[in-house]
């Protein structure tokens, strides 16, 4: 390279590399079929999920998966998450992260190869290319051909299909955030929220651009994940490997006949390059552009079968097993590769977080009480000698039904309670408050303590559901009274 030129006479290489368009050839095989399956699954989940209905009764939305930003609720089938329970989402994200560590350590960049949205949509768009322009050779020819009305028409049609897929992709996103059938009606009648149109527009554009045109450049230049994965991989991770010790020196069958010494198994048919969706040559070794989709494995296996050589010249293989095979030893069984401490540790952490989340989900409180004491004024001296304190209660009912609660002041002798919606004369030892379904009720509570008991003291406010389901919630708080009153009563007592 020029950089190594000691005299620095030549111009340094440009840091910019123009993209070489990739036209992967159609291929069939076990990995391709697996990729089809994962793709179908991912697209079905993405497009189908918002349309699943889930009956939660009259007080909650009937959509199975819904991120209700307006009301700050997240619904996922039987689970409803409030904003303060966002740690469930955080926990799931941590699980997703550790899950990726686990998968990467075990099977390398399987996420990149099969399930990443960029991979799925690039794959989809490459199928569209093959469907409209024909297979690899036809696409190469069309790409090289000068612009003509026919080529222009074909391109416009293809980009129209791109745009259609992009629109359906971008449009599906918004249904996760509102009732899908309603939003769809609103969307087409022009009455949906502007943010729905904006989101659809932006996601349509990004899908069209990233899936239709950027493709493998996203993986190679834009995505941080391949860099992180490079650090996550170790000598026990499965990666797509060209077994050079078996394939080299490569040469076609014709070259092999004229060669002085026998050549390796690679017949240099370049099928592995032709089918690669990122346009790399796996025979150059592991590289950042390889998303380990294993389509080259399918291609190579077919080539080997056609020349009567054993399959697996390109195959999933770990670094350790590569070295064993070079030395002529057999590869270790898969079970031994997977059951190693690092994977077990990842799995344990992943499973532990999952179990902890499930435990918290099962035991979380669906009724909460918080108490804010009025501090201005701290207490009010009433004319009869009694002292009144005011409290603001926030009663949060996270269930899909209204609940009536009995409010009582434990450890505050003689206290009579009333709220700002009651007449002071109606004050009683315990009062009832109804909290509407799935909401927080703010209650201004007054506690009046007769002169005989009016002194500074701690007590507990308790809210007991009258439906006798679930237990009472309680909150320690304080009753304030004038100091002098306190002393006087001490004297009287």
């Amino acid at each position, binding site marked *: 390279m020029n950089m190594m030129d000691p005299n620095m006479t*030549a111009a340094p290489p440009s840091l910019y590399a123009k993209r070489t368009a990739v036209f992967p050839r159609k291929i069939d095989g076990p990995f391709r079929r697996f990729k089809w399956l994962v793709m179908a699954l991912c697209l079905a989940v993405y497009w189908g999920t918002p349309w699943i209905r889930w009956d939660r009764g009259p007080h909650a939305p009937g959509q199975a998966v819904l991120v209700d930003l307006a009301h700050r609720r997240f619904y996922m089938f039987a689970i409803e998450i409030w904003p303060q329970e966002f740690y469930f989402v955080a926990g799931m994200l941590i699980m997703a992260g550790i899950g990726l560590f686990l998968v990467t350590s075990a099977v390398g960049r399987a996420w990149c190869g099969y399930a990443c949205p960029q991979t799925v949509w690039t794959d989809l768009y490459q199928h569209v290319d093959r469907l409209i322009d024909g297979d690899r050779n036809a696409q190469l020819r069309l790409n090289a051909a000068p612009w003509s009305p026919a080529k222009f028409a074909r391109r416009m049609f293809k980009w129209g299909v791109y745009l259609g897929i992009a629109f359906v992709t971008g449009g599906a996103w918004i249904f996760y955030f509102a009732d899908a059938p309603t939003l769809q009606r609103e969307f087409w009648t022009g009455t949906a929220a502007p943010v729905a149109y904006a989101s659809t527009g932006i996601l349509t554009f990004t899908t069209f651009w990233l899936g239709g045109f950027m493709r493998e450049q996203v993986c190679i230049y834009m995505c941080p994940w391949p860099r992180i994965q490079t650090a996550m991989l170790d000598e026990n991770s499965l990666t797509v490997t060209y077994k050079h010790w078996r394939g080299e020196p490569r040469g076609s069958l014709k070259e092999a006949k004229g060669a002085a010494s026998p050549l390796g198994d690679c017949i240099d048919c370049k099928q592995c390059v032709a089918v690669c969706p990122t346009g790399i040559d796996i025979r150059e070794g592991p590289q950042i552009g390889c998303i380990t989709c294993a389509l080259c494995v399918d291609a190579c296996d077919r080539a080997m079968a056609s020349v009567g050589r054993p399959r697996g010249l390109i195959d999933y293989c770990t670094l350790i097993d590569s070295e064993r095979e070079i030395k002529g030893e057999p590869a270790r069984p898969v079970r031994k590769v997977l059951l190693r401490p690092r994977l077990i540790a990842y799995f344990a952490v992943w499973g532990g977080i999952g179990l902890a989340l499930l435990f918290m989900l099962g035991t979380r409180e669906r009724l909460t009480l918080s108490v804010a004491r009025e501090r201005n004024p701290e207490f*009010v001296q009433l*004319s009869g000698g009694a002292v009144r304190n005011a409290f603001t209660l926030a009663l949060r009912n996270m269930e899909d039904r209204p609940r009536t609660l009995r409010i009582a002041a434990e450890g505050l002798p003689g206290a009579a309670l009333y709220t700002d919606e009651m007449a002071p004369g*109606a004050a009683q030892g315990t009062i009832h408050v109804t909290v509407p379904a799935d909401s927080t009720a703010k209650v201004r509570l007054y506690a009046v303590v007769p002169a005989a008991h009016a002194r500074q003291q701690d007590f507990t406010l308790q809210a007991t559901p009258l439906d006798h389901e679930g237990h009472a919630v309680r909150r320690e708080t304080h009753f304030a009274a004038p100091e002098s009153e306190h002393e006087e009563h001490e004297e009287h007592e």
Partner: protein
Amino acid sequence: MTHDKTHPAKVIDSATGTAMVGHEWDGIEELDTPLPRWWLWTFYATIAFSLVYVVLYPAIPMLHSASTGTLGWTSRGVLADDIAHEKVEHQAIRNAIAATPIEALAANPALQRAAIEGGHAAFKVNCVQCHGSGAAGGKGYPNLNDDDWLWGGDLSAIQQTLVNGIRQPGNDATRSSLMPSFGKDGILTGAQVQDVVSHVRVLSQQDPANASSARGAQLYADNCAVCHGANGEGNRGVGAPKLSDKIWLYGGDRASLVNTVTNAHAGVMPAWTGRLDPVTIKMLAVYVHSLGGGEAAPALAAPAAPAAGAAQ
């Protein structure tokens, strides 16, 4: 590559074709790589933007103010627009509050909520100076949270107090009364004042009956009972405080009571008509009534209690 110290103007680096800066440190030289074109044009664009901005908006600081800009934009003007906009926004609910009799607001919880919030906002501007931010008052300024009212604690009585004020000269409807300065004006002697105070402290159950209070009882009946009632029950008609309870506007200890009887007090409150619009005064009345001590209107007392119970 050559480096001519006598002509430092343009030395071109042969490897890159870029000019050199002309410095040299231990044989290491620096390329004078030009700024990227896009960066330069962005920079020029910001300069062009700033020139336009300086003409259109206030920009150049001067001794007492800044240049005004041709658009006439000011941050005060934005605030005024915002306030005007909010006033328009609030007009509908203010009209609704104006059209609803004050006793009927409770039947419309949303409207009452708005009135309380509006009253709270007005209270913070106009009332906290005397009554305190928590409306708890202080010596000489009534606590509005409690159940003791000098002039009445139902909605219309509070509104009447707000509209006409207390002891406002020139206002015929104002709350007005005047306690004589019994000691200062020589109506009672110093010893008689002490005896009356002793009696008042017995009335309020602060002291047991004694000889002084027994002497004071007759003086009280002659001089005080006409307004404060035979047993110190007070009289809201003349704003005479109840003397038998635990709440003292000017203090219930002996020294304070002696001072009150000797010099008398006549607290004043402004009449808010003319200072605030009727709707704001109405909202203030609703807010003060909502602080925990509000009383039901006498005529509505019977039906109001079950209505409140039903709402609950």
